């Protein structure tokens, strides 16, 4: 190539050389060999990431949650055990408290005792009871979650304002829980009953049947040293307890003889004659007793004496 005069020639210092066949793989090999350490390091890093770090990263939050749950459960069980040990130390107190609360919020309807209690309270308050009836009812919708049942009582009575007030006070202070659902009173119209009212109370008495089971992992929340618990118990203990109970005892007596029974029936006949019954009425009663006598003759007789305290 001719270079014009007066111009600098640009002669490349190195001439490009064409790759020689077989030189390229050797160059790659050299490069790989040169970078073997970083490549291995990166490979190990990747392996470390995918084998250990990534799975652990995914697993750790779950493990932490599990640990937290186990820790909470352990604490809960420790607290529960401590509570139970405390309750065990005061077992008699627990039983006594349970007994007191059970007398206020009874386990069964025990309607006769309830009606007797209401009747006694009404009479003690000076009211003259003229109607007392009951029905079983469900707790109100709002109280449905509490799962207790109620006995509804309808009480009709006559009394003055002060007696109604006393009745309400006595009822509120009586041990077995009886709530006043509603009440109304109206003045008696006759002149000799001035100041007296015909009163109608609709009362409700809740009762709760409790059948708990031991659930190991669930906490026991009752704390007999809790001020609220003590306050409620003190309040309840101040209530007036009515010991109304029907303790029926069946006592086996000696087998009666036929003669003894006949004697008893004859005595009965005499009593009936003195009661002023007509001959026909006495004959009807005698024929009934004869039928009973025949039945008794067929089987041994055991009298059962029912005593009510």
């Amino acid at each position: 190539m001719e270079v014009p005069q007066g111009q600098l020639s640009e002669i490349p210092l190195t001439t490009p050389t064409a790759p020689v066949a077989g030189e390229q793989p050797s160059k790659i090999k050299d490069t790989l060999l040169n970078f073997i350490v970083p490549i291995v390091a990166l490979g190990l890093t990747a392996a470390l990431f995918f084998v250990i770090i990534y799975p652990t990263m995914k697993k750790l939050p779950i493990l932490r949650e599990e640990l937290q749950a186990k820790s909470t459960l352990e604490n809960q069980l420790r607290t529960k055990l401590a509570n139970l040990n405390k309750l065990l130390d005061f077992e008699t107190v627990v039983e006594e408290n349970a007994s007191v609360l059970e007398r206020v919020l009874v386990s069964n309807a025990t309607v006769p005792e309830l009606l007797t209690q209401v009747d006694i309270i009404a009479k003690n308050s000076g009211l003259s009871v003229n109607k007392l009836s009951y029905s079983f009812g469900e707790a109100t919708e709002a109280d449905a979650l509490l799962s207790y049942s109620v006995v509804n009582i309808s009480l009709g009575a006559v009394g003055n304002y002060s007696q109604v007030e006393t009745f309400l006070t006595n009822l509120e202070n009586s041990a077995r829980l009886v709530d006043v659902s509603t009440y109304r009173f109206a003045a008696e119209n006759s002149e000799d009953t001035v100041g007296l009212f015909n009163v109608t109370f609709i009362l409700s008495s809740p009762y709760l049947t409790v059948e708990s089971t031991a659930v190991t992992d669930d906490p026991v929340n009752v704390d007999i040293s809790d001020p609220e618990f003590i306050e409620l118990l003190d309040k309840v203990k101040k209530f007036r307890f009515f010991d109304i109970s029907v303790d029926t005892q069946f006592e086996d007596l000696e087998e009666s003889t036929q003669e003894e029974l006949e004697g008893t029936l004859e005595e009965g006949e005499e009593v009936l004659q003195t009661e002023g019954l007509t001959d026909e009425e006495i004959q009807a009663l005698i024929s009934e007793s004869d039928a009973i006598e025949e039945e008794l003759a067929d089987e041994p007789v055991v009298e059962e004496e029912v005593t009510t305290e």
Partner: protein
Amino acid sequence: MANINLIPQSEKQEQVKQKAVKTSTVLAIVLFLIVGAIGGYMFYQSTTINKQIASHEDNISNLRGDIQRLEAIEISARNLGQRYSTLKELLSSRNYYSILMEEFEKRIPSTVEIETFGIGRGNTINVSGTGADYIAIAKFVNDLANSNFPQAGEGLGGVFTDVALNSVNLDAQTNKARFFIVVTLDEALLR
């Protein structure tokens, strides 16, 4: 004075290559070490947590055994707790109507006679009666509605929140004023 680099081109390329190898090696090793450290830390964490879980499980198992031995007292306590919570709820929502009667009586003037009294719907009581005159009824209504009634029990001044005089008429035979009122209660004060 200009610097003249006399190092041959091939040598320069070799130097660049060595530098690249060195840098990448250092970076790769550093990265490996960092990732290794993180991996080690995580492995340690995982192992530690697993050990802690195992330890908690042991304790839980022992505690469960201890608790199961106290099954009888647990049942008693649960029964007591259930009865207590129900009773607490019942007592806290109970209306003490004796308080109402007492407060109501205090506000009946001597010139007013109550004939009927009944607990109505929605915290109300319906009252009817007679008064010697209209003034007596007005006094009765005012006393009921007066939250600062002097003889009111402690904190019970506002137990009657509203008094609506529904009807008043004069009984020609007795010359007395008959009335019918609806009184709204603050039930919270009766608890």
